[in-house]
């Protein structure tokens, strides 16, 4: 039996890109490109707002509008892109 390799992640000095969870990445992306109202919301309201923002982002990117943080959406968020916001610039 071969043992699975255990990857060790290190913090590289000078690396601007930090390891982020998918939801951190999504929150960051939706805020940065204008899909989320950046006003502080809480609890249930926040979830509704995120789903709406995700749908708007999925519509803009030509993805299926699920309103959920699915794999195609995460992959789209990781792709290189222009820094100009998509909404409300």
């Amino acid at each position, binding site marked *: 039996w071969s043992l699975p390799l255990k990857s060790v992640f290190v913090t*590289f*000095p000078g690396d601007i890109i930090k390891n982020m969870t998918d939801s951190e990445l999504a929150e960051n992306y939706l805020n940065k490109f204008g899909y989320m109202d950046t006003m502080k919301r809480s609890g249930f309201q926040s979830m509704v707002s995120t789903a709406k923002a995700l749908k708007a982002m999925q519509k803009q*990117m030509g993805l299926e509008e699920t309103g959920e943080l699915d794999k195609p959406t995460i992959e789209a968020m990781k792709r290189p892109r222009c820094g100009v916001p998509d909404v409300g610039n």
Partner: protein
Amino acid sequence: YKTFDGDLKWDHHDVTYRIMRYTPDMDISLVDDAFARAFKVWSDVTPLTFTRLFDGTADIMISFGKADHGDPYPFDGKNGLLAHAYPPGEGMQGDAHFDDDEYWTLGKGAAVKTHYGNANGAMCHFPFTFEGKSYTTCTTDGRTDNLEWCATTADYSRDKKFGFCPSELLYTFGGNAGGDKCVFPFVFLGKEYDSCTTEGRSDGYRWCATTDNFDTDKKFGFCPSHGNAVTGGNSEGESCHFPFEFLGKQYDSCTSEGRGDGKLWCSTTDSYDNDKKWGFCQDDGYSLFLVAAHEFGHALGLDHSSIREALMYPMYSYVEDFSLHPDDIEGIQYLYGRKTGPDPTPPQPIPTTTDYEIDPTDVPETTEAPTTTTTTTTRPVDPTKDACKITKFDTITVIGAELHFFKDGNYWKMSDRSDEGPKGPFAISEKWPALPAVIDSAFEDLLTRKLYFFSGTRFWVYSGQSVLGPRNIEKLGLPNTVQKVEGALQRGKGKVLLFSGESFWRLDVKAQKIDKGYPRYTDAVFGGIPNDAHDVFQYKGHFYFCRDRFYWRMNSRRQVDRVGYVKYDLLKC
């Protein structure tokens, strides 16, 4: 397409630009050329002209920068954000910034222009072979002076054509030393430096003194990236060191170990564990031309499009033969109108002379030393004006028994009775003034001799000089998911097949309606032709399906009986 709120646009058509700062990744001439071509994308379809300024304030100020670069929107290191630009206006508005933590190329790997040598400044040819070994980057092999070189053809041993790769030992850019090479060691704030450094700067750019003492002479320049330099990390511009040690293990090539994002990196010293010096390995890089064309779209007033194939779609993807999408054209023409009148006469070729003086010791071993070479650069023929130089037409169709080839506001005609080659270009706007520059498809109704033109989701019908339209193609019964009609085939009198994507519909021309039972899959009916053909037409009893420079010819029994070149067989070039 979308425009910015309030339809922000320039109030003049003679827009100026100025390049404030260059990237170390590409030769200055390549950067200049990429920007000029990116502006031409927009000036080709609008009345806008772009003039480059070398000092003062221009409408569009262009610069490269990293992370915090002087505006409220910092870049984010390698990948992620590539560039941004501001809509038209005063001050920072209209400016375009490019993230210099990216690796800027022409989109297909290192774009390395050579210096000196005997290849007149030609681009490196990767891979090239030298004494039986294949090289994908510049090398110091065959030399004792540590200067990196490359061959400018595939086989150095056969052609003996070479040049030197960018190096601070040959020249610098920017700064105040007029491009002089670095002098090592040099003194800066009392300390001696043996290589380029980012010390003393907050912008992360590598620099050197061009005399032996910066403290007294204050002469400096920025160091160009080497042909195999790393990007990002904390060793920008330095080369990978193989093998290197990482977490006690030896690596002979770039690795993604230690990273969660899968990006390849390397150490620039023999031990990452000891020195912690690293950078990302070179990849294909991002096409400066494509990204600049997108950003200049913003600088002219276009916001992001939601059409994936449009230039103004927010995500980057590389395309080899770029042409502006109808959505982008519609957007920019909404703001500035269509291009009118003929192009100005191109200036005569300007001979430029560059002397490449080299020392015999500057030649890789095993070759003879050329002495002095003079190059004459001539302005190439504008490929948009020469049908034989166009690899992909917007559409090809038969009008009045003559083949018509359409591309970017022009068309050429080929008579089947002549072997003389194409006639033209003729301006579409002169013959059919209502039409846009890009025609996706066209056909002549055999019953009425009316001409149908399609562009994006709109179509026009010409009867002599009178025109109907534009109308939306949904009026014909095509679904709203169809973004453009890419080809048309006559099927008897009064019926025409319209192709889009992988499907086709049958149009009853008299009723102006799509017949029931459509769409049908193209490959189910026309087997053996590419399912992404962008020009479909009928000519001399055959169906033609074109993809890029090739055509697939199908006979009336729907058998592909020939595959050939548009250029040679149809245009007789």
